[in-house]
């Protein structure tokens, strides 16, 4: 039986989770919310995390009704992510591991998402679409590694949504993506946007620039085209949100479908913060049904960054015999999904 505590803090969420032998004991989280129109900056985010992290550790132990002595391993996010917030989690995890005399385990953030999604949904060997504010990847497991089949060649899909929300001055509470999703429900007119799939990869930065100009034509006077006026005398923000979602989610569904065909898989698992978007889930579900496949998705407790996924992935690593020397408990901003040797899967 492995009881594991995990700390996640790679972006604007800080979370602590406790899991014992697959049973969820605690999963608490705080989000650093910036004013509308503003993103979160590394040092300010780290400051927020420092202020709440110890309270969260207390809360998680209380909720789980366990004592530190009951734990077998302390896990933290090693990367990828922004260095200052990552460091907050790492320093607390290191200190706790030494105080409680427990082994310490650094976990890849993406692996955390994948393993949590598999655990919650029970998907066996799915094609994984990992979509969040910092990552966009289509992943399949093969030969002890999670292989990246396709990914974004510039910004992440969540970053595209977040930044468009900033242009519209939508609030960041509870999350910019959620507010775009709500606004899109009032949109009906499809405005044509660039559709950028390059082989198995996707690109979002061009779409973002394009839709930014549509949303606020005064900002970019360098356009020689007059088509904007002809095309859209007035573009409603709701229609833009609707069109943006339809376009970028269609791109994601396309590359996911191609990965399914390539691997002969009929399961899809969506993980990551954008994964709780119901429109994306719906579109993916239609594609899966047409192929006779099955979609697995989770709700915001497990989709959005959380400490539990780090605890769970760390526990899997620990169970399979992986150990990390204390001296290697650094953090790293770049840490690819396919760098991790998957010691806990035998298929």
């Amino acid at each position: 039986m492995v009881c594991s505590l995990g700390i996640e803090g790679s972006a604007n969420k800080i979370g602590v989770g406790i899991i014992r032998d697959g049973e969820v004991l605690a999963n608490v989280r705080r989000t650093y919310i910036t004013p509308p129109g503003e993103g979160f900056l590394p040092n300010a985010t780290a400051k927020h995390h420092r202020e709440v992290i110890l309270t969260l550790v207390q809360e998680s132990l209380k909720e789980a009704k366990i004592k530190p002595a009951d734990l077998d391993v302390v896990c933290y996010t090693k990367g990828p992510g922004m260095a200052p917030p990552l460091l907050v989690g790492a320093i607390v995890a290191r200190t706790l591991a030494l105080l409680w005399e427990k082994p310490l385990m650094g976990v890849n953030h993406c692996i955390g998402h994948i393993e949590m999604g598999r655990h919650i949904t029970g998907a066996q060997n799915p094609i994984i679409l990992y979509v969040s504010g910092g990552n966009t990847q289509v992943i399949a497991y093969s030969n002890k590694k999670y292989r990246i089949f396709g990914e974004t060649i510039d910004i992440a899909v969540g970053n595209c949504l977040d930044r468009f929300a900033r242009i519209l001055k939508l609030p960041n509470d509870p999350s910019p993506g959620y507010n775009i999703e709500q606004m899109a429900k009032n949109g009906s007119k499809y405005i044509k946007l660039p559709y950028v799939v390059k082989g198995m990869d996707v690109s979002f930065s061009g779409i973002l620039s394009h839709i930014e100009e549509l949303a606020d034509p005064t900002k970019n006077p360098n356009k020689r085209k007059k088509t904007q006026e002809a095309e859209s005398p007035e573009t409603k923000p709701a229609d833009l949100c609707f069109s943006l979602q339809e376009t970028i989610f269609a791109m994601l569904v396309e590359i996911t479908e191609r990965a399914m065909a390539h691997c002969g898989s009929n399961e899809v698992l969506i993980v990551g913060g954008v994964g709780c978007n119901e429109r994306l889930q719906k579109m993916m579900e239609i594609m899966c049904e047409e192929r006779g496949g099955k979609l697995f998705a989770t709700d915001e407790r497990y989709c959005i960054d959380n400490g539990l996924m780090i605890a769970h992935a760390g526990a899997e690593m620990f169970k399979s015999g992986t150990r990390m020397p204390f001296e290697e408990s650094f953090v790293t901003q770049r840490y690819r999904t396919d760098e991790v040797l998957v010691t806990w899967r035998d298929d």
Partner: protein
Amino acid sequence: MPQISAKPYESTLRLPFDTQGLAEIAYRVLSVDKEPRRNFVQKTLSLELDVLVVHFYADQVKNLRTAISSFFEALLLCQDTIKQFGNAVAVEPAEAQEENNAGAQSSTDSA
């Protein structure tokens, strides 16, 4: 740019802890992170019984300041963790310092 000093700037911090054990914990926790390469600061940590000694060398005062202040952020977090969880066997330490949160906007959700 005229050079003000050819010698490196230095700073030594001496940080005592209640016990040798706690000093060693802080030493191990804070030794892991290396200085960023582009910062041109050398940081060495050592232990003198219950005192953690940190020495900084830097080419520029500005870099020295950056290195020291980020070291302090890490040290304070480590100290706070020790304060709250140091005597792990004890039941529940007082509710964490909520007053620190002033200024930061934060939304709660527990699953």
